[in-house]
């Protein structure tokens, strides 16, 4: 049964910024002419003096954010995930990561679920780029409630943070709020013995759905919401590997450098077990979001199939 849809994570981001702005006069927000899409427009409306729309100039935006942070402000700088990470990567490297400036980057329209606008607007590799920068906390919240918690945690954390949020309405995972959210602490959404499904972002709801369908086939799947890709909760991964003996990682991102690669490295280090991966190997295309998720193998069925192949050799097929 499909989970009810909540608000988009970008919507939750925009609303949380306003709350933070009311609580802390040092919160400032920058955007690159996408405030109506990243939802920083709410902050702009309430705090025009603390909002800087720098126009379509992401490198300059991140540089300005670094200067604001160096002067005691807590800047949140936003654009689409692909634009802010790709176009301002050098600025993020030198002026934010290497300098240790307290800049928060929030990339919206992450992943391929933005749909019809197509590849040039989709964040396929944003998380990998953020992960390659030492010192960056990297988070991919699953739904609206978790986004609120993650954005608040980012504001409280001293140091660079990247958060990916998405365009479409997100299935509700935390219907009663995400109250015990902690940076770097995975959330066990469902316990299980036979396999662990590790996911973040939209793939968390898909992993829960996959676990339900696996249960019907007699397979007990643990589901870990790995909202923080760095610092990674290696203990939860080790425990999952040790206790369930198999791991499937699912992410809406290129598999070369994202959650899957990080989890695989942690498992290899701490407790190697058979693993399978659900994610992208290439750029996607234009299309309806749901159709894209199906075509590019980012559904509950895809996760369940990989899990089956791991835990039941009879299902194993050549890939």
């Amino acid at each position, binding site marked *: 049964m499909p989970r009810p849809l909540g608000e988009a994570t970008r919507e939750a981001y925009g609303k949380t910024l306003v709350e933070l702005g009311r609580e802390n006069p040092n919160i400032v927000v920058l955007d690159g002419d996408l405030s109506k899409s990243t939802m920083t427009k709410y902050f702009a409306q309430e705090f025009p003096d603390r909002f800087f729309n720098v*126009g379509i100039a992401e490198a300059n935006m991140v540089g300005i954010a670094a200067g*604001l942070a160096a002067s005691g402000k807590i800047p949140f700088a936003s654009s689409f995930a692909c634009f802010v990470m790709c176009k301002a990567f050098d600025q993020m490297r030198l002026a934010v990561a290497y300098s240790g400036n307290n800049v928060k980057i929030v990339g919206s329209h992450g992943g391929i679920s933005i749909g019809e606008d197509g590849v040039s607007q989709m964040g396929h590799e944003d998380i990998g780029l953020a992960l390659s920068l030492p010192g960056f906390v990297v988070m991919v919240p699953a739904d609206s409630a978790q986004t609120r918690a993650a954005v608040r945690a980012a504001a409280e954390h001293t140091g660079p943070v990247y958060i990916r949020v998405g365009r479409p309405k997100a299935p509700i995972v935390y219907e009663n709020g995400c109250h015990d959210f902690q940076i770097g602490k995975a959330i066990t959404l469902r316990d299980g013995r036979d396999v662990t499904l590790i996911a973040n972002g939209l793939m968390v709801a898909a992993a829960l759905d996959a676990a339900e369908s696996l249960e019907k086939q007699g397979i007990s799947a643990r589901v870990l919401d790995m909202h923080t890709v760095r610092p990674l909760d290696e203990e939860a991964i080790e425990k999952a590997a040790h206790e369930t003996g198999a791991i499937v990682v699912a992410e809406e991102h290129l598999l070369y450098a994202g959650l899957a690669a990080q989890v695989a490295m942690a498992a290899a280090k701490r407790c190697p077990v058979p693993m399978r991966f659900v994610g992208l190997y290439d750029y996607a295309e234009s299309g309806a979001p749901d159709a894209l998720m199906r075509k590019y193998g980012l559904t509950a069925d895809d996760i369940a199939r990989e899990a089956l192949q791991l835990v039941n050799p009879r299902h194993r097929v050549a890939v």
Partner: protein
Amino acid sequence: MLVTTDVSIEQLEKTARKLRRHIVKMLAIAGSGHPGGSLSAIDILTALFFGNIMRYNPRNPRWEERDRFILSKGHAVPALYAVLAEAGFIPEEWLWQLRQIDTPMQGHPSVKDLPAVEASTGSLGQGLSIGLGMALAARLDNKTYRVYVMIGDGESEEGQIWEAAMAASHFRVGNLTAILDYNRYQLDGAIGEIMSIAPVVAKWEAFGWAVREIDGHNMRQILDALHWARAPREQPSIIVAHTVKGKGVSFMENNNEFHGKAPTQAELEQALAELAD
């Protein structure tokens, strides 16, 4: 404009000569680095730090009310280290550790390693945006500090410079001053041959900046321009300083061999002789 200052031009020129000696010496000891662009910039840095222009406190480099200086053309860091030592931010002995492992004297400015450095630079084009962020923060906090950013002429080929130029003018930051070290050479050759930035004054004016052109080695003109930049206005200002790459050392002047090559021991001795008081 009438300039009232109690700093003697002669004293500043003497200081600049001493700092030139420090620059060539630290580069010779390091065995690598960028003499040309350090020597073209040093007169301006000397005026900024010792001409009663900038407010700073070497005992508290992070003093909130301080004026900020960002060396966006980070490869000229020997010039910055020389003024930081002269101003008392770092011990003079540190100059002779330039580029050495286990020291804070990084080959390009690093804020993480030296708190007296305002911004990590060296990937060209970034410093003006960072300075703009600091200038905006001053406005938000009702602070009166001014932000100075030195950019290079080759660096002005970077798109980010013009993004920042557009934004600084749009945001009407009167407390931001850029200084263009227009020494007319970049790594690969003469700037007019590699990628011309002319007409540079017209460009900055078109972007909405107050522009003043000076001889970047004439201490009187530098001081006058820095006082001019401090006048209250609702637009950013830029001093286009015409300079000579390698200025002060005969065989380095306009000799682009010394863009990124340290002097040998023999060259150092000759340079020091030419720069003697």
